[in-house]
């Protein structure tokens, strides 16, 4: 029976781009459907009734949601390129950092970039502290996954590519080469990878979109 893999996503979302990257690394053929989040399709609402969000992966008619859950599903379903290490302890470490990035870092980074003026200083300080944990976790490795891109690298796509764009659009400086030399280096390695390049949105289009959506920190002064 022919396999049917469909991905519902949006062009600018790091979360749906993560799934694209995982599928491409595994060499899985898929159909992509661009969602308009201001006018969600009946299919999206049917496949993700609880959260009504993208990305949604539909494999032979069965939906999987939440990007980290989807990534583990992809790794378990298709052999070949490993997204997670084989060793249980290393898998636990990978899951820990993936969760840390999404659950802890991202909300704080967002607050630092587009949050309340009053809480700005505190948010920037907190975001820096959290990013420092990630900087230290990288150690001397080329990627979080070691010699090749793994699940944590994919989850950190938002730091590798979107972060710089967020900062440009919002006018806030967070991820500097002086403070985070390893992360900056890793970002370059990551975005230079030929498969990753296929899974990144056009820079200028994204900046314009974000400026329109969130405004700029400098503009409010």
């Amino acid at each position, binding site marked *: 029976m022919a396999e049917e893999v469909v991905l519902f996503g949006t062009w600018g979302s790091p979360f749906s781009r993560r799934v694209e990257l995982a599928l491409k690394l595994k060499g899985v053929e898929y159909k992509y459907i661009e969602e308009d989040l201001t006018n969600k399709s009946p299919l999206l609402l049917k496949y993700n009734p609880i959260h009504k969000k993208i990305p949604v992966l539909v494999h032979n008619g069965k939906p999987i949601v939440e990007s980290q859950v*989807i990534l583990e*599903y992809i790794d378990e379903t298709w052999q070949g390129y490993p997204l997670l290490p084989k060793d*249980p302890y290393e898998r636990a470490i990978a899951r820990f950092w993936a969760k840390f990035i999404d659950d802890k870092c991202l909300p704080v980074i967002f607050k630092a970039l587009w949050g309340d003026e009053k809480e700005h200083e505190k948010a920037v300080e907190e975001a820096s502290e959290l990013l420092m944990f990630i900087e230290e976790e990288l150690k001397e490795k080329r990627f979080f996954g070691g010699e090749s891109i793994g699940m944590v690298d994919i989850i950190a796509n938002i730091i590798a590519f979107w972060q710089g764009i967020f900062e440009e659009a919002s006018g806030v400086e967070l991820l500097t080469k002086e403070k985070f030399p390893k992360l900056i280096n890793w970002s370059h390695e990551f975005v230079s990878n030929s498969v990753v390049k296929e899974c990144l949105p056009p820079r200028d289009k994204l900046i314009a979109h974000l400026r329109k959506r969130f405004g700029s920190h400098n503009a409010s002064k």
Partner: protein
Amino acid sequence: MADEVVLLDFWPSMFGMRVRIALAEKGIKYQYKEEDLRHKSELLLKMNPVHKQIPLLIHNGKPVCESLIIVQYIDEVWNHKSPLLPSDPYQRAHARFWADFVDRKVYGVGRKLWATKGEEQEAAKKEFLEIYKTLESELGEKPYFGGETFGFVDLSFVTFYSWFYVYENFGKFSMEAEFPQIVAWVKRCMQKESIANTLPDQKKIYEFVLELKKIFGLE
């Protein structure tokens, strides 16, 4: 070489309870260390510098953090009996989704219910009822969230049973009246030794919350 397993935990924590149940299910011998969360031990701070939180499992000197990550680790290392996750990738994804839902939604709303007053508490109650309704709907007619057998989602949610009396008391409602299927499911789970022996008494948790409210001036 004998395995050395240490669990740093805090007795009322529903997250810690998940790990205790998983260890019991697998028949793993371990050393339990009770943490005083207002005076965290050197060991906790050293082994979990990022979050400084329990539960923390230390296996042969190596730390694993975050309850659901610990449970998956336990399942993968001690894979000889009592599987905690299904073997089919789609069912695993389904289980991970719902366990994540419990993590994101259930703890927060429960806390708001006992820690707030007035309008905020009313809003929390409304949210609480909606979330539990969603869970009850997911359970449906199945004996367990995992289907015929107790699984990952059951494990992630059943530990909140210890806190039901707290929620009922502060929310002024009856869990049995509002969510008969969830209560029936909990009673089914409590027939398992690993769960009945792990979950603290509801009244003890209630007394703990009263103390907590006093300490933090939340009365």
